[in-house]
Structures are given as C-alpha cells and as structure tokens.
C-alpha cells in the first residue's frame, strides 16, 4: 500500500513500529504535490524545506522517546486562513498576497504541539467567500475526481488535497458549509464543530459569529483524531467555551442501537439532484439497519436560513474586512493622491468581485435606516432557526440531511450567477446559524461517479454523537479513498 492511502491511525502505528519515518512520509507527500498539484492547485504555499526539517525533528524526538501522540510526525495541510508565524498567509486574497503574520493561530500552535509536519498552506475562496474555490486570487482548485469540476469551497484546496493524496489530513474553516460542502464534493470527511469548540484566534475572520475550524480527512476516525487535537478552550478567544474535550476516537465503532435519528422534512423537497436524494436515503436506510430509530422532524424556518445568512455574514464581513486599508500590512495600490484615494484604490484592486459584493451587501444591511429591516430582522430569524433545532433535539439525538443539493459542478458553471452558487450551501448554513456541530461523510456516488455526501447534525458540544453515528455508517458504506491520477478511483 502506498503511504498516501494510509489513515492517521495507520501512520501512527507504522511510525512507532519504525516501518517508516516522518521524513519518508513527508517526502512522499511533497513529491506528490510536486507531481500533481500543478493541475489540482490545492496549495498556495508549499513548505518543501521547512517540512523536511520539521519531519527530521519529529523523527529525532520520537527516537528519543518523546512521543507527542497520534499526530506526531504526520504531514498535514492548513487552509491559508490560519495565521502561521513567519509563513505567508494570504486568505486567498491579493490584499494579503504578501502578508507574513508575526504570530501563530491557536489551531496551528496546537497542531505544532501535537507534532504535525506542515506541508503547506491550502487554496481557498478569497476570505472564505465562495462555494467553489473559484474566487481565489491564486486560481481555482480542481476536483480530484473530475478536473473539469470544482472541489467545492471555501476550503476547496484542503478537501481536494485530502482526496487526491496531497496531505494526510487538513484543517479548514466553515462559516456556512465551507468544510462540509467541499468534503462532500470531494468524497472526504469534514467536521464543522460547535461554535466555541475550536479557538478562532489567529484564524482570519470572515463572519465572526459563524466561523469555526475543523478537520477534513479521509476517514471518520481521522477526523476524530484531528478534532481532538485542535478543540478546547482558549483564553485568547472570548467566544471559545470552557467545555472539556472528550476522547472522540473512542466514539468510533460503537453500537448505534436506540440512537434516535431525525430526518428534517424541509431538507428533502425540490431542488435536490435525484442521485443525491437517492444516496442519502440509502444512508438513512443503512442507519435503520444499524439499529437507529428514524423519526421525521420539522425545522419550519429552514426556508429563511439562506436569506438570514446572507445578511448576517456579509454584515460581519464588511466590518471584519475594514482593516485591509493598505495602511499597515498587505497590498497597497500606487497612484493615489490622498488618503481616501489610497483606501479606494487599494481596496478596489486588492479585493476580488465576490468579496466586494459581500462588503457592499453587509455595509448596506448595517446602514442607518436599514439596520432594523435587515440586520435586526436577520438576528431575530436566526433565533427562530436555532429554536427549531433545539426543539427537534428534544425528540432525537442527531439529524441527517444531504450535505449539498448537488454533486460537484463544472468550473465556471455558477460564477456568473451568485444566487445559484449560494444555494450550494442551503443545507449547511442553518447549522452555522444555530452554532451546532455537523459532519459530512461520503455515502455514495452519482451517475458520473462523483461523490455524494451525507450530513449529520448534532447537539451543541456533542461532536462525539456525530463521530459515533458517522463511524458506524462509514463502516457499512466504506470510505471513499483517494482519487487516482486520471480522476478514477485508485484501489487501495
């Protein structure tokens, strides 16, 4: 078996048995990136020398008996939204195309402490605004299963890299589906943790009340291992919550008997690609066979989620992105004659179309005279959406839905029509608005062999429930594996 097919658990075992070194694994991944990433475009920055040096350090540490746990010596990728001290961090934007942060995000620090080797910073939609990774200043990333298609977004680079064996695992971020939707479209596993579960410190903000970091991996157990490493309270993030981190790994392989699974009827109405509907229903049938009790539930305010999200997220973004003014760091345009001119030119040139569209939307929604009608109302709707979920969770342990209404679409297919693009996240957005955890895992394929993902949504701070159900489901449906050079499935 080739190294890039191995799960985190396998790698950990082989490293400790001295069957392989961190350097060998790292070199293997780096050579794959060198060979294949020109086409996939999943990385913005590849840390060739640094990764090798770090792998050697981790090998040396392990031979000294210094064992940092299951991620020790494992090469991973990070979405280019996490600040990495001394390493270029672009957030997929021209305006940060030269930004080298002087500090580490908490996620990166935790991953370093856990002994991982950072292969590089992964491509993404600019400022995480997009569902296809086409808004990246560094060019679109490709879907490993069909390179004429998008990998989803905004963590599209991370999902594509995991699915094409260009890193052992990755960490992305999810504001409205940006981990789960690309994981679904690439046949990977992606977890959006409860809001407050993972520190946002050093993670470049898109919409602060929605953003969460989470793992993108080949298997559910890998996701559990990675989540355990990055989760936990951080005094540097006032919105992180001091709730103990359970050993998620131990929730893999458990019996599902008696687990109550809710099927929200509002998620199975028109607009879903028939194969997606079919595969998700198959997954639900599989859960029933595993001993789950299937219950139909209602989330009556689901229809308003998309509108609510496209007010709340751009409003927060319009404020979060005000700091990119060309004064202190990043890109600054030439040829201005006064302060306002410098701001205007820098922001006009530094931001892409989608980012500017959302800044405009958000600025408008917060303006005097419009606040109550837009932002104020969106906050009230958000409360209703959250209440829907809490009521549903009185009757069930988890909810199961499709992750995305369609499988991967073609490059350029939706770029001209933002509203159609926004619909890609219609099933993932409500979870972010409610602050709930969600996982996406592969559950089948469409007529063109493209992956279909199923989403499991859990109660606040009950990621272990997601791991338990997803792990059992994966054991009957099988993991999706790594895409081959042709885009066809590579047998492992």
């Amino acid at each position: 078996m080739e190294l890039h097919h191995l799960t985190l658990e396998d790698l950990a075992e082989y490293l400790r048995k001295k069957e392989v070194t961190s350097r060998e694994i790292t070199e293997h991944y780096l050579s794959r990136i060198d060979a294949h990433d020109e086409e996939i475009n999943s990385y913005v920055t590849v840390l060739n020398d640094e990764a090798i040096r770090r792998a050697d350090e981790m090998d040396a540490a392990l031979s000294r008996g210094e064992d940092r746990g299951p991620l020790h010596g494992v090469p991973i990728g990070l979405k280019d939204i996490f600040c990495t001290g001394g390493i270029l961090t672009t957030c997929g934007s021209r305006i940060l195309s030269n930004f080298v942060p002087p500090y580490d995000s908490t996620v990166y620090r935790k991953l370093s402490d856990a002994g991982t080797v950072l292969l590089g910073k992964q491509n993404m939609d600019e400022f995480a605004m997009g569902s296809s990774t086409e808004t990246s200043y560094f060019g679109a990333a490709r879907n490993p299963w069909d390179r004429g298609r998008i990998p989803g977004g905004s963590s599209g680079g991370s999902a594509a890299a995991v699915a094409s064996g260009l890193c052992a695992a990755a960490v992305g971020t999810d504001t409205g589906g940006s981990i789960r939707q690309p994981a679904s479209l690439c046949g990977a596993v992606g977890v959006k943790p409860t809001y407050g579960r993972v520190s946002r410190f050093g993670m470049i903000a898109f919409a602060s009340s929605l953003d969460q970091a989470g793992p993108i991996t080949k298997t559910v157990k890998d996701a559990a291992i990675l989540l355990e490493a990055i989760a936990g309270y951080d005094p540097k993030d006032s919105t992180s919550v001091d709730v103990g981190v359970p050993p998620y790994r131990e929730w893999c392989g458990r019996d599902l008997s008696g687990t109550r699974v809710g099927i929200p009827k509002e998620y199975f109405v028109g607009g879903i690609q028939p194969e997606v509907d079919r595969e998700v229903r198959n997954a639900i049938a599989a859960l029933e066979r595993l001993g789950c009790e299937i219950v139909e539930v209602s989330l009556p305010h689901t229809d308003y989620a998309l509108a609510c999200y496209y007010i709340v997220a751009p409003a927060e973004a319009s404020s979060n992105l005000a700091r990119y003014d060309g004064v202190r760091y990043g890109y600054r345009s030439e040829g201005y004659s006064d302060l306002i001119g410098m701001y205007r030119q820098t922001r006009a040139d530094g931001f892409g179309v989608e980012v500017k569209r959302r800044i405009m939307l958000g600025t408008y929604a917060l303006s005097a005279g419009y606040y109550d009608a837009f932002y104020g109302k969106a906050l009230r709707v958000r409360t209703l959406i959250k209440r829907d979920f809490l009521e549903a969770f009185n009757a069930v342990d988890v909810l199961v839905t499709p992750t995305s209404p369609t499988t991967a679409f073609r490059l350029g297919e939706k770029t001209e029509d933002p509203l159609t693009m926004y619909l890609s996240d219609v099933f993932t957005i409500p979870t972010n608005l409610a602050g709930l955890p969600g996982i996406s895992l592969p559950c089948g394929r469409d007529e063109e062999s493209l992956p279909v993902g199923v989403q499991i949504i859990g109660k606040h701070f009950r990621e272990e429930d997601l791991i338990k159900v997803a792990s059992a489901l994966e054991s009957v449906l099988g993991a999706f594996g790594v895409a081959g050079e042709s885009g066809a499935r590579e047998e492992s």
Partner: protein
Amino acid sequence: MEFEAVIGLEVHAQLKTDSKIFCACSTAFGRQANSNTCPVCTGMPGVLPVLNRKVVDFALKAALATGSTVRRESIFARKNYFYPDLPKGYQISQYELPIAEGGFVEIDTKGGRKRINLTRIHMEEDAGKLLHEAEFEQSHFSLVDFNRTAVPLLEIVSEPEIRSPEEGGAYLRMLRDILVYLDICDGNMEEGSFRCDANVSVRPRGQSAFGTKTELKNMNSFRNVEKALEYEIGRQIGAIEEGGQVIQETRLWDVAAEKTVSMRTKEEAHDYRYFPDPDLVPLEIDEGWIEKIRESIPELPLAKRDRFQREYNIPAYDSEVLCQSRALADFFEAAVAVHGNAKAISNLLMTEVLRELNKDRVDITETKLTPSHIAGIVKATDEGVISGKIGKEIFQIVYQTGDDPVKIIEEKGLRQVSDEAAIEKIAQKVIDAHPGEATTYREGKKGVLGFFVGQVMRETKGKANPALVNEILKRLLEP
C-alpha cells in the same frame, strides 16, 4: 427676546489601568512610538479582543459613585469608520446596552446646589495618534503611533441640563474631582486624559422644544470649555436675532482666535453602522461584583466638602479648596486631629502650602511635609510661642528641610519674647531715639504707632509678642 442655553457634555476619561482594554500591552505614556503594541491592538488579521477585567472595575466605580444603574448584561458594539489611527476600521465601544445608565453629578451654582443627570456611562477603546511631517496641509505623508490605541476610556454623557458656561465648568470640575477621588483617571485636560465635547443649542426662555444643536470639539482646558460655550451661545443667539438660523454641524474651538469654526455639517457626518461585536460575549455583572466595588468607593468630593464645613466649622470656600484633592483633604484632617484649630490650619494650607505646591507642581504627598508639622506651627502660634510672621518663616524651613518646627524654634531661638520688662526697655529706647514721632503721636496722630511697633519688632528680630508691644508702646507714649 431672552434666550436660554441648553448644554449637554460628553466626557472621555482615560482610565488608569496598567494594560490596555483588549490586550496585555502597557498603557504607559511617553514611550517610543509603537512600542506599546501587539498584533491585537494593531488589528492584525485573525486576532481577537479579550476584555480587561480592571476596566470593568473602574467603570463600575464611576457608575456607583454617580448613582447610576448598572446593567447586569451589557454589550460591546463596533463603531465602523475608516481612519489611519483606527487599525481595525472600527472602534470597540458600547452602544445600545452600555454598562450604566442614569445617575447624576451635583454641582454648586449661584442659585444653590443643582443636580445634572447623566444619560449613560460606557466603556470603549481609544484610537492611535497621527504624526505629520509638517503642518497637516503641507505634509507628504503621515506616521501613525499605535501606543494609545486600545487604551481604555469611559464615555460619560450628561443630559442637556446645563444652562450656562459656568454650570458647564462646575460640572466638569466636579466630574473630574470624582474620577480623581476614585483613582481611576488622572483628570488632566491639557494632557488629554480627560476630554470634553459639548452639544449646545439655544431657545427662547420658556420654550420647551430644543433648538438646533451644534457639537463643539477641541477644548483642552476647563477655561477653554467655558470660553467656547460662551462664544457659541452668543454666536447662536446672534444668528437667530439677525433672522438667520443655526445649522446642525460639528464646530472646532480655535484657541488662538477664541472662536468656534465649522468642521463638518450633518450631511458630511459618518454613518457608523453600529452592531454588536461578535468577538465579545455579553458582559455579565453579578451582585457580588457590584458589592465588592461599592465597598471600595471612598467619600466623594461633595460629601467631604459638606462634612468639612459641618464638622470643622470652616467656610464653604475653604472646604472646597481643601477637598480639591483627596490627599490634601486627608492631610488637613490629620493635622486637625493633632491640633484642633481647623480654621488656622486651613489658612496655612490654603496660602503658604498651596503656593509652594503649585510653584513646584507637586502633590502634598510628594513633599517632606507631615500633618504634625503644620499642626505644630499653628499650635506654637496659638500658644504665643511664636508670632504669625515667624510661623510663615518656620514653614519655609520645614518645607525645605522636613525638620520638626519645635526643634527649629528652639535651635534658631525664634521663641517669641513675652517678657514685659525686656520689651518695655526696648520700647523706651525706640521712643527716646525718635522724639519727633513721639510728639506727633501725642498731638493725636495715632497712626504713628505702627512706625514704633515696626521699630520694636526690628530691634527684637520679630520675636516680640506683637500684642504686648502694642500695649506697652501705647502706655509709654501716653502724655
């Protein structure tokens, strides 16, 4: 037509915490530019604010000292605008749900004591400072110093209940005194740790509707606030009387020209797009926290003034001067505890002591003076050991050296001469030496007595008991 001014004041008080409001950077003044900064206060991508608990303690002190109602749950909001001294592109402030509302500050006016109600007190972060290469218009570039960025501020907003520049001045001084007593603000207007903006309008006396208001900025002393209010009220009344109208605008006080000038009109005003800051959770304050702060609040300036008048039987003016600073008031009370002549101690403090403190620009706690020094000087005077004049000389020595006044009196032989026979001998000698002046006195020009007293005091180097000298001279000069 008679007009009435309607004034509301907005104060920004810089809090004396050691670290900034949302990061651990120092608030120390006068450091090298941008040395008190970190990724958080310079608004780098991805950083998050964490509220400094001490800032809340200080805000609670101000709230409780002014009788304000503390909100059990208050919210931080973002005030969005672009300026290079504002690194995030927004200022974290409080908007809809501030930490405290209501409350009041009492002032003494010509018409008696008056209560000025407060609208609100809220916490916010300060902005940085721009440094220009030359005069602003001529500069090719500007530099930014972020040392002051995110230094904590309290904004204290009064209701529009101030009716004259004098009331405005009295309100500001009283508010400053309260914050200084609470030890949460330096209260220095010139250095900018206590700043004031004013909303001013005028209306015909008797009318209840407000006139159009202007906002005044850039007044950096109590005197300037009073002058600016005076000017602006006059300007607005003038405009109305000439058949014109007041336009809503922001005006700057031009210190040199002593007038207000237009800065921007309502149309040019910012839309700050306030919304709750999603990076900070609602601030919850429980009863225990409030109680802990309540216990730490000292006697406040006005209460102390009233008590001094009552307890020590000193005039209102004395108590106001003594209560200007907590240290001076404490010093006074300690001195009176040693020697009970409160009025004489007050006199010495208000004249000799304050003159030296002002000259040296120091606080009384920074000098060598102790309350028993002052009590000792007054006591020696009261007991006739020294004259008042010698007392002032002794004070100077004590102030310079910190030596005990009793010791100085003994060592320098400054003890007052009250020996009648000795004084009589000197007096007779003086009279004999000036027969002409003696005759003038005897012819009825009693004013000459002062001349003889002066001569006797000179002969005795000021040590003779003046009352005794008077009495003896009169007796000897009688025909």
